[in-house]
C-alpha cells in the first residue's frame, strides 16, 4: 500500500476545509483608484439585501449563463467603491451548502463599505425565524455614528417575488421556514434607526401590489417596485453611484428611469417599474387590498399578477404613482401598452 504521511494529510485536509468554507463567498475586487479622503462628509446610507438562496440562473441572448445574485453583488461593490459620501452595507443570503453534506456552515455574507473603502467583511449563520436579525446586528455594530435621520437612507431588496402572505419554500436551504412581505417589512424596521427609510427598492417580480405597498408603507417614504414580472437581470445596482442626493421621490424616480432604460434594451419581456409616494398611496393600497382577490396560491413566490385595472370593477386611483412601462414584444400582454402601476393577483 502507498505510504501516507499523516501530518501532510491532516494539513492538506485543513487547507481544503478552510478553502471550502469560503467557497461561495463572493470576493470584493481590489479598488482601482485610491480611497477618498476620510474626512468626506457622509450623506447617504445604503443597505443592499441580496437573496441568493434559490435558483437565480439566467441566460443572455448569446447563451451565456449569469448568476443574478452574484452579478448584483459585483454591481453593488462597484457602486460602493465609487461613492465617497456613502456608507454601504451589502448582505448576501447564500445557499447553506453543508460541509460533507452534514455540517452546517455560514450561509450569509456581510460587507461594509464607508467612503469607498471596504471596512469589514464577515460571514454569519442566518437565523431561520428572523431572516434579517444577523444583518441588523452587523449594522448596529459597524455603522458610523452619523444618525440615519441626517442622511438619505435607502434599502434595496433583490430576489424572487416576496409572497404577500408567508409561505414555505422561498429559501432553498430553509424550505420549511415561511417567508413573506411582513417578514421583509420587519427586517426593514430592524435595519434603520430612523422612523423609516427615505427610499426602498424592491428588485423583484410583483412588488407593486396593494398588499405589498401597504405592508411596506410604515418603513419607506418612497418605494420603487415592479407591479408585474421583472427579468432576473434586475435593476442594476451600479446605478446607485449615478444617483445624486435628492428627495426620496426624486431619487426613486431617477433610479426607475435609468433602470428602465437599461432593461428595455436587453429584454423582450415586459418592463414595468413604478414609484410610490407612500404618504399619498397608502389609502389606495389599503383600499384595493380589501377588494382585490387575495393571492391564495400555495407556490413559494405566489400567484400570477396583472394590472389591477383588469381584475377590479372599480377605477384604480393612480395618484402618487409614476409608471415606466414597455409591453412585452410577444405573449398575452403584448398589446397592453399602459399600466396603472398596481398589480393584482389573478387566477386566470
Amino acid at each position, binding site marked *: 500500500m502507498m*505510504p*501516507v*504521511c*499523516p501530518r501532510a*494529510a*491532516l494539513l*492538506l*485536509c485543513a487547507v*481544503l*476545509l478552510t478553502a*471550502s468554507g469560503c*467557497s461561495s463567498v463572493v470576493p470584493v475586487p481590489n479598488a482601482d483608484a485610491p480611497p477618498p479622503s476620510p474626512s468626506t462628509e457622509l450623506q447617504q446610507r445604503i443597505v443592499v439585501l441580496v437573496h441568493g438562496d*434559490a*435558483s437565480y*440562473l*439566467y*441566460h443572455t*441572448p448569446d*447563451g451565456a*449563463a449569469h448568476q443574478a445574485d452574484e452579478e448584483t453583488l459585483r454591481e453593488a461593490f462597484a457602486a460602493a467603491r465609487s461613492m465617497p459620501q456613502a456608507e454601504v452595507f451589502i448582505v448576501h443570503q447564500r445557499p447553506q*451548502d453543508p*460541509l*460533507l*453534506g452534514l455540517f452546517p456552515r455560514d450561509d450569509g455574507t456581510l460587507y461594509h463599505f464607508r467612503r469607498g473603502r471596504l471596512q469589514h467583511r464577515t460571514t454569519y449563520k442566518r437565523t431561520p425565524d428572523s431572516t434579517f436579525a444577523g444583518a441588523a446586528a452587523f449594522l448596529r455594530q459597524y455603522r458610523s455614528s452619523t444618525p440615519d435621520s441626517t442622511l438619505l437612507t435607502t434599502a434595496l431588496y433583490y430576489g*424572487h*417575488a416576496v409572497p404577500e402572505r408567508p409561505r414555505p*419554500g422561498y429559501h432553498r436551504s430553509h424550505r420549511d421556514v415561511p417567508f413573506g412581505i411582513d417578514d421583509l417589512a420587519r427586517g426593514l424596521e430592524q435595519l434603520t434607526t430612523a422612523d423609516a427609510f427615505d427610499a426602498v427598492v424592491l428588485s423583484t*417580480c410583483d412588488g407593486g401590489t396593494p398588499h405589498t405597498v401597504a405592508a411596506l408603507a410604515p418603513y419607506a417614504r418612497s418605494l420603487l417596485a415592479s407591479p408585474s*414580472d*421583472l*427579468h*432576473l437581470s434586475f435593476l442594476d445596482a451600479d446605478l446607485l453611484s449615478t444617483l445624486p442626493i435628492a428627495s426620496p421621490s426624486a431619487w426613486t424616480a431617477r433610479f426607475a428611469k435609468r433602470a428602465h432604460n437599461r432593461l428595455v434594451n436587453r*429584454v*423582450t*419581456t415586459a418592463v414595468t417599474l413604478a414609484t410610490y409616494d407612500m404618504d399619498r398611496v397608502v389609502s389606495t393600497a389599503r383600499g384595493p387590498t380589501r377588494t382585490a382577490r387575495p393571492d391564495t*396560491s*400555495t*407556490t*413559494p*413566490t405566489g*400567484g*400570477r399578477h396583472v394590472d389591477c385595472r383588469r381584475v377590479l370593477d372599480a377605477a384604480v386611483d393612480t395618484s402618487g404613482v409614476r409608471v415606466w412601462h414597455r409591453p*412585452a*414584444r*410577444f*405573449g*398575452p400582454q403584448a398589446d397592453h401598452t399602459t399600466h396603472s402601476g398596481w398589480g393584482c393577483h389573478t387566477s386566470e
Partner: protein
Amino acid sequence: MRTLLHRSALVVLALMLLAVATPVQADINPHKKLKQHVRSMVQDVKAAPTAEKKRALLDEKLRGMIDALNRAESMATLSPSDQEGIDALRTRLQETLDELHGQNGYEAVPAGQLNSFADYVQQDFEQADRTLTISLTTALLVLILIVLLV
C-alpha cells in the same frame, strides 16, 4: 501506533474526497438543468438555417415539455403547490405554442421574428422563475422525462 496513524490518514483522505464530491453532487440541480434545457433549445433555434426549421424546432421542444409535465402529473402524487406550479407552467407553454402557430386568438409569429421569439421564451421562462414553484423532486422527474422524450 504507526498503523493507526496511517489508517487515520486514510480516513481523513476519504473525508476530503467526500468534501470535494459534495459540491459536484449538489450541482445536479433540476431547476438549473431545466433552464439550461430551454437555453439549448433557444440556441438550436437560432442556429437553424430556415424559418420553417426554427418553427419546427420550437414546436417539437415545447410540445415535449408539455408532454413531460403531463406524464409527471400522471406518474406521481403531487402536492397542491407542485400541482399549481405544473398547471401554471403548462398553461404558459401552451400559450407560447398558440402564439408560435397563430392559434386561440394569437397572430402567428412572423418568420423574421422567430429568433427574438426564442429569446422571449427563455426570458419569460427565467424571469418569473416558473420552475421555482415546483419542488426539487418533481422538477427532477420532469427533467428526466424531458431528457427521455425530447
